């Protein structure tokens, strides 16, 4: 029962990621695409933790920690370039 609810939750999060990716395709401005990338990053951190639960390995959580730190640096670099060119 609990496994089923966890799986449904992961699929709903996946649908959210796809909606955010549609915004990345449509775009219009670069800032829109950066916002969509930001949202996809957060959702994929949640997905990584779900995969760690599903495979039953704690070591996968380290990937999520690294991801949360590094992707922040990438988005800030994009924003700095938009603002005044690093």
């Amino acid at each position, binding site marked *: 029962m609990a496994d089923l609810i966890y*799986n449904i939750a*992961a*699929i709903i999060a*996946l649908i959210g*990621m*796809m909606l955010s*990716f549609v915004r*990345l*395709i449509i*775009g219009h401005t*670069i800032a829109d*695409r*950066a916002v969509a*990338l930001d949202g*996809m*990053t957060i959702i*994929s951190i949640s*997905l*990584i933790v779900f*995969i760690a639960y*599903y*495979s039953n*390995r704690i*070591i*996968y959580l*380290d*990937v999520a920690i*690294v*991801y949360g730190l*590094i*992707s922040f*640096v*990438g988005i800030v*670099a*994009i924003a700095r*370039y*938009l603002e005044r*060119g*690093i």
Partner: protein
Amino acid sequence: MISIIIIVLGIIMIMAAFLAIHLKNLLSAIISAGVISLLASVIYLLLAAPDVAMTEAAIGSGLTTIIFIFTLKKIKKGDLDD
């Protein structure tokens, strides 16, 4: 369950790759390339390779984006000087 996630993420990856080729604006192409490495990291994790996934997250998503943006800035600068 795992196969559903792999199929959806793979489709998004292929679409992002087409988008990165197709877009005219270079910064948008860099963002699409960032999406590719973001999802590649999750897929490596699904294929039970956490160390490769960690390296992909650090280098592919963080460092490559910054290096691309730095290069873009250098190119634009040279463009203005001419």
